[in-house]
């Protein structure tokens, strides 16, 4: 469904990605794991057309996404929940969700989708009239994910959905991701919480300093000694 080949991203002289390739098959949940500064957000933002690339190619359903702006990607079925969430903090939860259904492709399914989102996150249903910016971090993350789902995406990109959340709230977010995965939606998720993510994903890529340094089915990576040492040891393990 999504194929990234030899992607290069630079910020001025600073090289963030130097030749990253990956594949996401339809219906899969694929994880990108890596430490802070590895280039995970740059990868996701490049796929979503939010930053310019300096080489390589991104293809979605066989078509190149070069020069397709972010707003047009949403119409094609790619939704992103960026780092920092990108919600509309001054608007209500209900308005944020309605905005998710602005793309042409989402309008017919908006009511059904809203019901699904409220079932997934009952808190949003209770708080639909609340100004989104006044909610807790975890609730805002729910708004962001719910809004992305409202656009009836074929591919959902998530950038560290558990970042900065208290462990119990992060757990709730991962439970929601599991349910989203079980609906058959294709998901590409960036995370630092390797243990929780590998428990959900079908396949994972390990990213270090702008390169893919390993990849494999999530079940195999969970028991790979090198991965355990790098991502699942010590502090990481105690987080989940």
């Amino acid at each position: 469904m999504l194929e990234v080949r030899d992607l290069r991203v630079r910020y001025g002289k600073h090289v963030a990605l130097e030749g990253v390739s990956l594949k996401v098959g339809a219906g899969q949940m694929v994880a990108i794991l890596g430490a802070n500064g590895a280039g995970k957000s740059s990868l996701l933002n490049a796929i979503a057309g939010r930053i310019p690339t300096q080489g390589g190619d991104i293809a979605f359903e066989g078509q190149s996404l070069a020069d397709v702006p972010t707003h047009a990607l949403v119409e094609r079925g790619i939704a992103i929940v960026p780092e920092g969430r990108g919600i509309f903090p001054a608007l209500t939860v209900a308005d944020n969700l309605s905005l998710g259904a602005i793309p042409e492709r989402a309008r017919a399914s908006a009511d059904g989708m809203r019901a699904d989102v409220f079932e997934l996150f009952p808190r949003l249903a209770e708080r639909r009239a609340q100004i989104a910016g006044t909610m807790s971090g975890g609730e805002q993350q729910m708004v962001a994910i719910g809004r992305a789902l409202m656009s009836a995406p074929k591919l959902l990109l998530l950038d560290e959905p558990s970042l900065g959340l208290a462990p119990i709230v992060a757990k709730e977010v991962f439970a929601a991701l599991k349910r989203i995965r079980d609906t058959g939606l294709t998901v590409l998720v960036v995370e630092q919480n390797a243990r929780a993510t590998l428990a959900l994903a079908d396949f994972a890529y390990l990213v270090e300093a702008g390169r893919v340094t390993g990849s494999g089915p999530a079940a195999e990576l969970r028991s790979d000694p090198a991965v355990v040492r790098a991502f699942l040891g010590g502090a990481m393990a105690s987080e989940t």
Partner: protein
Amino acid sequence: MLTTLILGLVLGGTYALLALGLTLQYGIARIMNLAYGELTLIAAFVVVAAFQAAGIPPLAALIAVVPAGYALGWVLYTVMMRPLVARSESRGRLEIDSILATFGLLFLIQGVLLVSFGANFTSISYLDRGVNVFGVSVALNRLIAFGICVVAAGALIWALARTRWGLVMRAVALTPGSAPLVGIDVNRVARQGFALGTALAAAGGVSVAMYQTFSATGGVVFTMKALVIVIMGGVGNVAGALIAGLALGLIETFVSTTIDPGLTMAATFLIFLIVLLWRPQGLFGRG
């Protein structure tokens, strides 16, 4: 007293309409349009010329002038503003660039108006018979001008608050950075907002032409008053602009009838200064 109230409301309606257009252009397109009053004057002069030359009543002209205003705004944004937007990395840069560019546009339009219509004050007498309103005789043209403002402002406020289109406009005004994430083309919406603001300037111009005396060099006064109202109402606050506009019309009329007509501008700016010092976020802005 009742006369002052009614005349003040009529004047305030025109101000409110003008302020709404300016606040749309600033809030959605991020352009501080110093040539706004000149755009109003173009519409006013066109209405007067059509009336004097061909006997076309202002109300009929309204139907053509407002869409023409929208089209002019569309072209201005595409030709003049879009390059500024494209090269500005920051919002502050765009504000400064747009102020300079529209300052130039102000003199360009003023020059064209002077050449085309001369420097004299102009007015028309159209439907100026008196109508009895709560025992006070008010010229029919003023009532119609007020009606135009009420309908246009009401429709705008309703659409912004209740329609999908309005939600998109508010989203872009409040958090433009997030808008592309939900498939909104910010550039397209900014162009629409600027064009709609110009259409409101044109509607305001029609209302000005119906009951006021104006000249080709007076556009800046409209811009200043609209700006004062926008800041008083809270930048980007549509309902605030409406209330502040009506209030300013009432205050000016009150000052000119009970104190001295020469003091209206002074009163306007005194209030403006007080608001700026005491509540810089506007009377109705969020603190």
